[in-house]
């Protein structure tokens, strides 16, 4: 049977980890490849790099980091941030990414997702949906890190993205991100129940119970977290143990 996935996320800026893990005995805490290796050894189910590079001039740095990570890690790698053209996708895949996550470009041009899926296959196209709860049960897409409202209903958008060939949806609650109060379960569940593709819950994890909630209550099949893995607060093994204890299938 298919297992629920635990996915650590590293924020990468100009080729360096800016929000990642301060592992003990790590000589260089900003080296994404070193952090990726540790997660690989710890049995993380996948790894996500979010490129938050301010300038698109440094794109080649990202390709280099992806290539070095792919050389050192034998688990799936998703790269997101700044993916706008099919050429960006091809370069990331050739560098060693397994999936790419598309955010703003999907909002601006939903047909881009269809074009990408037809070219590279549904399975490597992840659409990243950043949404806020604007009224109870009402979820709106925001872009630019949650600053710009779009007026687009998140659930309708999610359906459209799945129809256009997105193989997976990364659903981030912008009102929870960084709060450590837990995923927005209503948002996660509204989208997971509306589409037939896998949903990754993201944004707001503060403890292991939140991971359980994302799957059990939010109906996600994968949980992404960054900060709980910071400073060794929790390990991948502890995250999986918590899911297993709640009766959820995990790979250990």
């Amino acid at each position, binding site marked *: 049977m*298919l297992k629920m996935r635990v996915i650590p996320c590293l924020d990468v800026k100009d080729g360096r980890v800016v929000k990642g893990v301060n592992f003990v005995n790590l000589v260089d805490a900003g080296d994404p490849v070193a952090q990726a290796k540790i997660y690989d050894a710890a049995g993380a189910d996948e790894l996500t790099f979010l490129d938050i590079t301010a300038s698109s001039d440094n794109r080649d740095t990202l390709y280099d980091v992806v290539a070095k990570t792919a050389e050192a890690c034998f688990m799936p790698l998703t790269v997101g941030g700044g993916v706008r053209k099919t050429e960006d996708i091809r370069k990331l895949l050739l560098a060693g990414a397994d999936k790419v996550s598309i955010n703003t470009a999907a909002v601006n041009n939903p047909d881009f997702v269809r074009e990408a899926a037809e070219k590279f296959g549904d399975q490597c196209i992840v659409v990243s949906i950043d949404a806020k709860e604007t009224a109870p049960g009402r979820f709106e897409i925001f872009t630019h890190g949650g600053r710009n409202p779009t007026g687009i209903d998140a659930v309708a958008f999610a359906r459209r993205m799945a129809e256009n060939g997105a193989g997976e949806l990364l659903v981030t609650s912008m009102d929870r991100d960084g709060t450590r109060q837990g995923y927005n379960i209503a948002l996660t569940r509204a989208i997971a129940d509306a589409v037939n593709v896998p949903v990754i819950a993201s944004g707001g994890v503060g403890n292991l119970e939140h991971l359980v909630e994302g799957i059990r209550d939010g109906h996600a099949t994968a949980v992404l977290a960054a900060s709980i893995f910071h400073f060794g607060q929790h390990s991948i093994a502890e995250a999986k143990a918590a899911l297993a204890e709640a009766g959820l299938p995990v790979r250990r």
Partner: protein
Amino acid sequence: MTTVVIDYGAGNLRSVAKALGTVAAESRAGEVIVSDDPTVIRRANRIVLPGVGAFADCKKGLESRPGVIDALAQSVLEAGRPFLGICVGMQLMATEGVEYGTHPGLDWIKGKVVKLTPDDPGLKIPQMGWNDLKLRSAHPVFAGLESGDHGYFVHSYHFITDRPEDVLAAVDYGGEITAVIGRDNLIGVQFHPEKSQKVGLKLLANFLAWKP
């Protein structure tokens, strides 16, 4: 000994080549090269066809490389060299695939590649993640592996073989689906060994040591 990873413009070549290179170095199994040169393919001792992408796009990519399909047929079908297809590379071994229209495959293992249709409507498409293998054969590429070991799957289409004995391992995803196929010198894996940590690297090492 040389293992060639076929470069046809699509696919996660680098990941596959790096994983093979890592296990080849550990087991002194020679060099791993990435190439679309028919001469290199004909000379190689082992051939790996990776795959990420859509069936038709990958097939077109193979066809657009002059002489590659002929070189593959000579090495694999005539000379009987060990061949490993991965994900779409495995699916291309089929008679035909129906992703974005019906397209002929290499027809090395009789069967069709069709959309996943799990019994349980709650199961998502694609199947994405780690699933436990049910081995149906004591094939040499499974040495040191056992049922219950996990492979990483990412696919919306699956291989239905005409002959049940061509299925060497299966996984459960709303019914049994094909995880590994093979006959003679041919092996195809639906999951990604290059992304399946220890289990995947073991399978790749076994492939490099396999003498069909």
